């Protein structure tokens, strides 16, 4: 093995140069929000696939003459309002945490979780009152699969909010004005789920 003095020399020089640039590179900055955002892009693509499949079905596959597929508007409109309001209340919770008003933050979180549960309840009511079932026809199957997949997201989000709410209750807990990652992550996820619902509402109920 021949020795490579030039490399070692440069190596040291470059290391010193890197040193001069900043110390921050050594200790990890927090990239978790970036990672979560990338994941949500992926998650959004799943929904995009479902939406495109549904629109293609609508365009290409006519509903069989005796098939029943009718949606009522009032309940889903209420659901849309519930989710949009919950996005606003979650935002208020985040603002309160940044101002270090823990009590305010907990109250808004609690309201948000309540709105999420209200959405899920209302969705269940809709499921049980609809005149068609999962396997009745193509549109019905797609409707249940996609709203169900979204409902799963709302369920997970509500659980997340409750966990964040629980953790923010103790003063030295994991969610504080210094460590607001759990709250911010849940908030970004919740806004994403709300955005998906708006698109879903337009495609499935209004079109």
């Amino acid at each position, binding site marked *: 093995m021949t020795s490579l003095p030039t490399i070692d020399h440069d190596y040291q020089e470059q290391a010193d140069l890197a040193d001069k640039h900043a110390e921050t590179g050594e200790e990890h900055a927090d*990239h978790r929000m970036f990672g979560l955002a990338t994941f949500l892009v992926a998650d959004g693509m799943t929904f995009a696939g479902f939406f495109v499949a549904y629109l293609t079905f609508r365009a290409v596959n006519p509903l*069989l003459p005796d098939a029943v597929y009718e949606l009522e508007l009032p309940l889903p409109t209420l659901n849309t309002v519930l989710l949009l309001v919950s996005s606003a209340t979650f935002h208020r919770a985040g603002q309160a945490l940044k101002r270090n008003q823990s009590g305010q933050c907990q109250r808004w979180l609690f309201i948000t979780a309540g709105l999420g549960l209200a959405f899920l309840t209302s969705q269940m009511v809709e499921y049980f009152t609809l005149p068609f079932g999962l396997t009745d026809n193509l549109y019905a199957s797609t409707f249940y699969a996609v709203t169900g997949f979204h409902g799963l997201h709302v369920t997970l989000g509500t659980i997340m909010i409750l966990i964040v709410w629980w953790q923010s209750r103790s003063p030295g807990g994991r969610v504080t004005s210094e460590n607001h990652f759990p709250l911010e992550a849940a908030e970004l996820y919740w806004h994403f789920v709300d955005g998906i619902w708006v698109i879903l509402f337009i495609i499935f109920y209004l079109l």
Partner: protein
Amino acid sequence: MTVAISPPSKKQSDGLQPTGWLRYFSFSLDHKVIGLQYLVCGFIFYLIGGVLGGAIRIELASPIADFMARDVYNQVLTLHGTVMIFLWIVPVVNGAFGNYLIPFYVGARDMAFPRLNAVAFWMIPPAGLLLISSYFITGAAQSGWTAYPPLSITTPAAGQILWILSVLLLGGSSIFGGINFIATILKLRQPGLKLMQLPMYCWAMLGTSILVVLSTPVLAGTLVLLSFDIVAHTGFFNPSLGGNAVVYQHLFWFYSHPAVYIMVLPAFGLVSEILPVHCRKPLFGYTSMVYSIMTIVLLGLVVWAHHMFTSGTPPWMRLFFTIATSFIAVPTGIKFFNWLATLWGGRISLNSAVLFSCGFIVNFVLGGITGVALAQVPFDIHVHDTYFVVAHFHYIVYGGSVFVIFASIYHWYPKFTGRMLNESLGRFHFLITFIGFNLCFAPQHWLGLNGMPRRVAEYDPQFTVINQISSVGALLMAISTLPFLWNVVQSALSGPIAGDNPWKALTPEWLTSSPPPVENWSGKAPLVTEPYGYGVPEEPLNLEKTSNIDSDLGSKSE
């Protein structure tokens, strides 16, 4: 197995991570350990997939189904495709080399999310076991790796469901990996290192990870709907229940065409790392290489329906997808000529890594030419679902990706283990792999052009001789694994010590000990802004000087 006895480190002294060989069986967070876990795990599945492929070639050595029953043949070809794609090539070109190299290349101590990284790897062995065990428990899926309905709905359900579960797990692992690579490349670069100074493999992995994140979730969603069709008897893709099987094909190929680039773009990146080192020349056309990769990523997302020219695709769609597909030949051609220009006039060491890289270039250009041919609708309709497609596909993924995997193992083995591989065995390995591969797959072009359909256990007796030639090639490929395995095991135990930088390379993974310490560099991470600074481009030609290796290396200082 040789394993680094790493010096006690400040960062990892908490004692939670095992050391020694045990860490390769642990939930280790070290990107180098995870990379090797991917590599060895992938190679085991390569052997399994190889046995399955061998079984197919034995069956096809005679025109009647005498080696196995026809439904077993269907299971074997399904498992062969799924194992080779999802458990060997995708995890190895992305997971193995990506995890090992990317943190070095960006000057980081580890990936952005080490725990997510370990989770992503440990999803693979259970998924693989699920897939393989389905053969023994319920009978494996029989509808090919594409799982087209109505075939996948009408064949036995249990095996198909296990197949779907397994692919969902592997897709999840792939998405987690992709997120990690994107975050590591974009966010963890050391200060002062610009994007356009990164080694080419980083760009390849960035492009690949974008494809993974955008397209894999669509496959996951589609397979969930397919499982509803099988289990709950919904009718998404079942025409007899009012569904639409072509929608499945669209959604499936929206992932599975980019999947070809997920398998081959990282291989492009790896070759771009290997060639400059062994030719002692800078990588030709760095900027054009970067733009080519990103163009392939963009175009790769909008060409999927060229797999569906016979699926009742409307004429405007055929026209669009033919043109888009043909356009991909442009960036690919640019990369191809860049590699040739890198080799041109270099002082090439014809070692195993370079031989496999050149083998890749030859095979890939052949696969590329048949690819452009297949993009043309009239030709595609003629050879659709024949052995021509099988030949084309294997020229891309075996002649392309697998050759590069071997080249990369020969190139980075000294870094992985601290020992050199045996060169003679390596060249012998290359020789019989190259001959065996071409003997196996070149005749299949002829078979396909003359109308032998794919995925059948029985065929017209006029094809017997050509099929037997192909089977002999497969036998050679099987034999070629033996010198490689012997070489890898033998060299790990008693190969010559490699030293830190046996190839005198300039990329950051070589500027540390072999194998590297847990924290990658014992001191500060080196800032390598010119990873391909071989040769003396700015000075007038001086033959005496360029023949001196030390002055070559010295020239990279600025």
